[in-house]
């Protein structure tokens, strides 16, 4: 793929500005009507998906060059995909999110990178994680748990906690809870522990496709060697990367399951029962990568064709991937099954979920932007009257924990696995 592959998208953008908002049908208030964190931060049209399409066109047409402002407009974005959802409400022929990713990759390829990202990528290349942590400490979260080591053994399932659950001291216990749940369920699984490598998803989103490819190659090879057919992960970013980005390559045959799906299935099958009440009013944050970017995915290869003269469609038919079938129900089934939990929904939920701020590399590249985005979400969470915000992604949790610490909001932040574990 190259940027030219998205020329048609840019030419067919109508500048409707739907990309700046949540789907209008879902708007319930003035306060929580906006959909694009990037637009809230940057304000100029170039910070929207439509604006970036024009940037791409303008660069391709030689009408402008990459300046610091252009870089800022391209990278100051969570790639949350809300724009993609809203655009596709009415369009079958637009892929704004993919176009924006391509724009990033093009800039990176041409050397227009953000200096603050360099240490992060360097860490990925040398330590196989994006947190700058020593690779050998990756397995420390396991502590005293006894789990199959897939670097030397084999199993059907691999549990892949991901970089953040592995290294983040606040979140390691969640990975352990996951392991306990998996053990309880009796499936044949293992972990790679300190040999585990980053999924590479964030690198992809930040425009470093080669680095992503390297990680993907390494992971797929390791899983094949371990006889793994299914990856289970509690991290929404990893989930998205494995199920959407790996499947473009040899990863097509690997099944990917998020912990919420696993737990929800367990509840449905009667294998997991919540017996301990947790009296809490909670609200649930749909992670972008589990929700609208977590749909079942089959990579499409084909070409554009026209019907009825000029109507644009594709051969074979190109699925819409508009966020309709993201993993929305499973986490809610879990929360509703836990006795004592009262789920109070925010206004922007499911496909209209406001980003946590960490996505797209923003946590690393633009921490103050990530923080303000997170704060916006926390405002919304607090508006429900909930005492806790629950989510299913390590990056979301990190972002929210940082934000609550910074703004002093008395809102607890939980991973859904933690609540599930407590209730079992």
């Amino acid at each position, binding site marked *: 793929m190259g940027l030219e592959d998205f020329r048609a998208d840019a030419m067919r953008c*109508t500048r409707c500005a739907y990309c700046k908002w949540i789907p209008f049908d879902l708007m319930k208030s003035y306060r929580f009507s906006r959909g694009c964190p990037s637009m809230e931060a940057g304000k100029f049209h170039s910070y929207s998906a439509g604006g970036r399409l024009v940037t791409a066109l303008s660069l391709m047409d030689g009408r402008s060059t990459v300046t610091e*402002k252009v870089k800022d407009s391209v990278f100051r974005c969570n790639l949350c995909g809300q724009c993609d959802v809203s655009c596709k409400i009415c369009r079958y022929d637009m892929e704004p999110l993919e176009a924006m990713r391509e724009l990033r990759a093009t800039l990176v390829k041409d050397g227009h990178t953000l200096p603050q990202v360099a240490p992060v990528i360097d860490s990925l290349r040398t330590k196989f994680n994006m947190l700058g942590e020593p690779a050998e400490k990756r397995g420390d979260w396991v502590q005293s748990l006894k789990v199959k080591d897939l670097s030397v053994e084999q199993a059907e399932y691999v549990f892949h906690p991901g970089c953040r659950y592995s290294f983040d001291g606040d979140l390691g216990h969640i990975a352990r809870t996951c392991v306990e749940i998996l053990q309880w369920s009796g499936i044949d699984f293992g972990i790679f522990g300190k040999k585990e490598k980053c999924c590479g998803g964030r690198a992809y989103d930040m425009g470093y496709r080669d680095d992503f490819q390297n990680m993907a190659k390494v992971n797929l090879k390791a899983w094949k060697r371990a006889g793994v057919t299914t990856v289970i992960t509690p991290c929404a970013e990893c989930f998205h990367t494995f199920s959407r980005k790996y499947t473009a390559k040899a990863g097509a045959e690997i099944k990917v399951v998020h912990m919420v799906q696993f737990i929800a299935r367990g509840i449905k099958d009667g294998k997991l029962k919540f017996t301990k009440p947790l009296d809490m009013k909670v609200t649930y944050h749909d992670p972008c990568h589990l929700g609208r970017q977590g749909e079942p995915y089959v990579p499409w290869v084909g070409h554009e064709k026209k019907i*009825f003269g000029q*109507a644009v469609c594709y051969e074979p038919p190109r699925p819409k991937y508009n966020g309709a079938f993201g993993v929305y129900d499973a986490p809610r089934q879990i929360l509703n099954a836990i006795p004592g939990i009262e789920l109070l929904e925010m206004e922007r939920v499911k496909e209209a979920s406001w980003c946590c701020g960490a996505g797209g590399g923003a946590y690393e590249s633009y921490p103050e932007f990530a923080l303000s985005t997170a704060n916006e979400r926390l405002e919304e969470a607090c508006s429900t009257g909930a005492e806790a915000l629950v989510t299913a992604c390590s990056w979301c949790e990190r972002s929210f924990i940082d934000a609550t610490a910074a703004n002093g909001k008395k809102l607890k932040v939980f991973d859904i696995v933690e609540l599930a574990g407590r209730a079992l």
Partner: protein
Amino acid sequence: MMKSIPKEAYGAIEDIVGADNITDDPAFLDSYAFQWLAELVRPNRSHYMPRPWAVVMPASTEEVAAVTRLCNVHGIKVKPISTGWYHWAAPMKDDEPTVQLDLRRMDKIVEIDEKNMFAIVEPYVICAQLQAEVMKRGLNLNIIGAGCSTSIVASACAYFGGGPTSYFMGNNSDNLLGQEWVTPAGEVIRTGSLSSNCGWFCSEGPGPSPRGITRGGLGSRGGLGTYTKCAIKLSPWQGPPVMEPKGVLPGYRLPIPENFRVYTIGAPSWDALAECYYQIYDNGIGYIFHRQFNLAGADLAPALWLNYIDTTKTLNDVETSAKDPEIQKITEEARISFQFIMQGNSIEDIHLQDRILDEILRQTSCYKVKRFCEPDMAEFTNMYMQRLGHKHCNFIWAGGYMGSWMQPGTPDFVKKYVPVAIDGFKRDQQANDKLVQCGGDALMGCGSTIGGGGFFGLEQFVSYDPNDNDSIDACVKHMEGAICDTAENGIPPGKELLYLQIGWTDERIWDTFARMPQTFVLNFQRKIKEAFDPNSLGDRNYPWLPEGWAAKRDGPKTL
């Protein structure tokens, strides 16, 4: 050769709005130059209108005024844009230095006066936002035909103002109450009761209404200063305080409360349609009244919409469906149809409205289109029409749409030009395959653009591929064909002329103006411009005729 804003001017504006709120970065500027419909009028089918010299984002009326006054000093035109969405939102000429005022930061709902049924808003408050808030208070607003993503200030003060709810709620020209206007000279003007310090509730007076110079059938479209606030009249809403759509995108469905009815009404002929419209006006029933779904073309509309509500389907499925005999039956049934929603003050009221509607249908031989009145489609219609958040579907076929015709008038007037419009569009589609082949009737429009009924237009939805110069050419050819068709049939020109004029020279536009049967208002507007825009910072979106201008050539009155 692209020029750039002088440093001095840039610095001075920066001092007013802050460094983060002004830019002259070329890529950023291009995002404002790039506009829908530009490709129809620009050289080499470029999608870019002229580039502004800078984009400036003021936060307040004071900043707008200060920037405008500064631009007067430097001789730089000022072009405001809020939500945008038409090529005339951009600068008009390549050789005119222009600052684009992006009003995005002026996005507050200043006040909702629930009792007195109006809201005061800034330019970047969109209809959807205000609707969500006022519905909580049992109120609603007229959302214009371009949909809920549009700026209320823009439609009330500076553009057209008609929409599917205008029949019940009034045109936004009539819904406009007090307004605040920064003239091109940088003066802040308030009109109506506001200028007399009596609040926002009235747009008329004192004495003759000064607001009469700010807009008429259309507004100045950014060509005569910047509107920074307005109060908009609201209307009653008897539905739930918060919309709770169900289902899966894009086919969100809005449950229909028991005091509402949602129908698609079909007519056996255009005569019958006109009779039905007249009876609806006479009987005063109805809340939302619009020929909406036909934007896809009567040949294809049912196939499209029945697939649209299923998110797993693509346009490929539409192609298949269009050949399905069952769908073809529905297509014929819905060929001449419109959407009609009724709101009752009570159950008894809605039952009575139902009876009245049934009687109207009986007398006019019209009918309810069965498939479209089934719960899934009815609830989808309800969602679509109440929030009007799917207006980007205007572009659903290929990313390009141009609305031709749309001459407004009475139902009798409209039904007369409909066959001409249909034949002409069919002819242009059949000339080659460079337009979407949706049949000659892709006519869409409000039941009435003014309150109480009586006046509306239908526009042809001409779908073309903006990524294909041949397709763009075919669209332009259709527009020129439509202009000839209207001239030959004694019909006034339609919207296609307005769009094409954006690409004309001043002289050619003035020639057209000079040939109009009444030029009084254009001369009036010249003098208004002289008074309020002495340095000519506004552009020709505010039309005027130079003094003594006589058309320099013969020929068709409009080309």
